[in-house]
């Protein structure tokens, strides 16, 4: 187990180094930041001064080391577009908003997926099972950004029940949360369904039935509790899906999170913010996957000796 954790940790660090090199290089070939920083009528002398001020005159490897050193202290330099603010400050303001949206979406997703999955498993092969599958599959096939627009059209424009966009009270998060959450319903639902099918077949469920426990109690209490473990592994995959959805939905709903920040900073070539965002999100993914892998190895010893999950 220890050996497995050390190997996985080492791999995670390698991946993070790879990410930092890719980001560093990519951002530097998108064009000189000097063009954005200096006014159009700047002289050679001005350019050189600006370069020296921002450290662009040093050799690349030196810039990289400086970059990594600062990144480790969560310092990605000042923002280029929003003068006077640090990149990390902007990112730090945006991250909680995005997490809030993603968290609510995850909640909506589980809230929809678990009942559907349980009922599908109990009523396997019936029309109810089929309807459940269709709801889940539909979610997987609807482009989240489009679903967001349609929800605005129905609930904000026509019915006037919910606000169109922006961040405010609880009512503001409902539409983007549903649009984002529905997408991962299918994955959660499928897993719940198959886990439930396994559990419903087990001895202790049979025993609970023989004992005369009410059927609803057998299903929703005894069986569901034990079927709740496998979905854990899905967390890493869902996190990846969520980021793509978050970026598009934040532009639809004018939600002040990392997606909006990313879009404005890419367009403004605000590369300190872009760098910071990509690295922080990657670090988050890597950590989530690391934790999931270790937990998985803890639960299922076969993983430790097989050298990972493929």
């Amino acid at each position: 187990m220890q050996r497995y954790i050390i190997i996985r940790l080492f791999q995670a660090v390698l991946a993070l180094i790879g990410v930092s090199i890719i980001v560093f290089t990519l951002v530097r070939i998108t064009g000189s930041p000097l063009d954005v920083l200096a006014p159009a009528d700047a002289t050679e002398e001005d350019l050189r001064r600006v370069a020296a001020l921002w450290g662009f005159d040093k050799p690349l490897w030196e810039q990289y080391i400086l970059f990594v050193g600062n990144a480790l202290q969560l310092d990605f330099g000042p923002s280029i577009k929003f003068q006077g603010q640090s990149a990390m400050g902007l990112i730090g303001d945006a991250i909680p908003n995005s997490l809030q949206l993603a968290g609510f979406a995850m909640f909506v997703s589980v809230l929809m997926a678990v009942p559907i999955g349980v009922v599908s498993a109990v009523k396997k092969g019936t029309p109810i099972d089929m309807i459940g599958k269709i709801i889940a599959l539909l979610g997987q096939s609807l482009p989240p950004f489009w679903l967001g627009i349609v929800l605005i059209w129905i609930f904000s424009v026509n019915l006037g029940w919910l606000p169109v966009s922006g961040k405010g009270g609880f009512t503001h998060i409902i539409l983007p949360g549903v649009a984002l959450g529905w997408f991962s319903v299918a994955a959660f639902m499928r897993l719940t369904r198959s886990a439930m099918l396994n559990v419903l077949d087990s001895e202790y469920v049979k025993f609970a039935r023989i004992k005369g426990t009410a059927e609803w109690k057998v299903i929703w209490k005894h069986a569901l509790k034990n079927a709740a473990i496998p979905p854990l592994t899905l967390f890493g995959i869902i996190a990846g899906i969520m980021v793509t959805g978050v970026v598009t939905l934040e532009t639809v709903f004018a939600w002040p999170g990392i997606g909006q920040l990313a879009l404005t900073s890419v367009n403004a070539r605000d590369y300190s913010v872009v760098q910071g965002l990509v690295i922080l999100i990657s670090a988050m993914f890597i950590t989530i996957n690391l934790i999931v892998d270790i937990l998985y190895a803890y639960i299922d010893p076969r993983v430790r000796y097989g050298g990972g999950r493929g």
Partner: protein
Amino acid sequence: MAVATSPAAVARVPGARVVGWAWTILRRYPVIPVAVLLIVLVIPALFAELITPHDPIDGNLRARLLPPAWTDGGDWSYPLGSDRQGRDILSRMIFGARTAALVSLAALAVGGIIGSVLGLVAGYFGSWWDHVIMRLVDINLSLPLILLALVLVVLFEPGTATTVAVVALLLWSRYARQVRAEVLTLKEMDFVARARVAGASNLRIIFRHILPNVFNTIIVLATLQVGNVILLEASLSFLGAGIPPPNPAWGVMVAEGRDFIVTSWWLSVIPGLAIMFTVLSMNLLGDWLRDYLDPKLRQL
């Protein structure tokens, strides 16, 4: 099944047999998804020039923002309405189908081939090939690729080729992982050892003996991904990081209609329906193909 002819079956009228037979076909084969795909994606993509009533890019400014024909004020020469530049929505959607088909096929081909080759190499040669390729897969899976795509589009000129490259970059690692895992078991099998004894070179063993055995997996993975790829292309185009306007692409159309959702709902809603039906049918078809070719692949 000796007692298959139950009394109920005997008593059935001939019409019910036809219905029963049709129901069996519908349940056993993905007839509806294939039909939807043909209508929404394949036929429009292949015959776009022949079936479009109007030009997809040049609009008629006198026919601006016409609603769909079946609603008040609609005009049957613009069956699904027109946008604010007087372009026919139907014609743009037909050419949009071509864009979607082209981008997803090309991206799957590029990503699938690169990923599969890397997976074969990593699995077959092992040692440091395996380490390097698998770490690349790790990096690829941990990058927020949608953000990277935004950066890449600033770097390169937006267009079909860039979109294909970005999407392929997002896809290859799945193939590499899956193919490698299968090669690891395949290469220990007797037929590989025998081929080696018979004097086959590494290249010959890989392409002649191992590749045919992982081919089903690659095909199933590709079919299961088409839907996602179309969604991805639409998302990128929607964000302005995919197919650039005025080119007809479904994602672009949804984005262009977004600001008109209050007054002209059809601009966004109708192209989104095309995406939805295509992706839904593609997912159903992929599920069916996976079960048909190899039920073992359930976890894909």
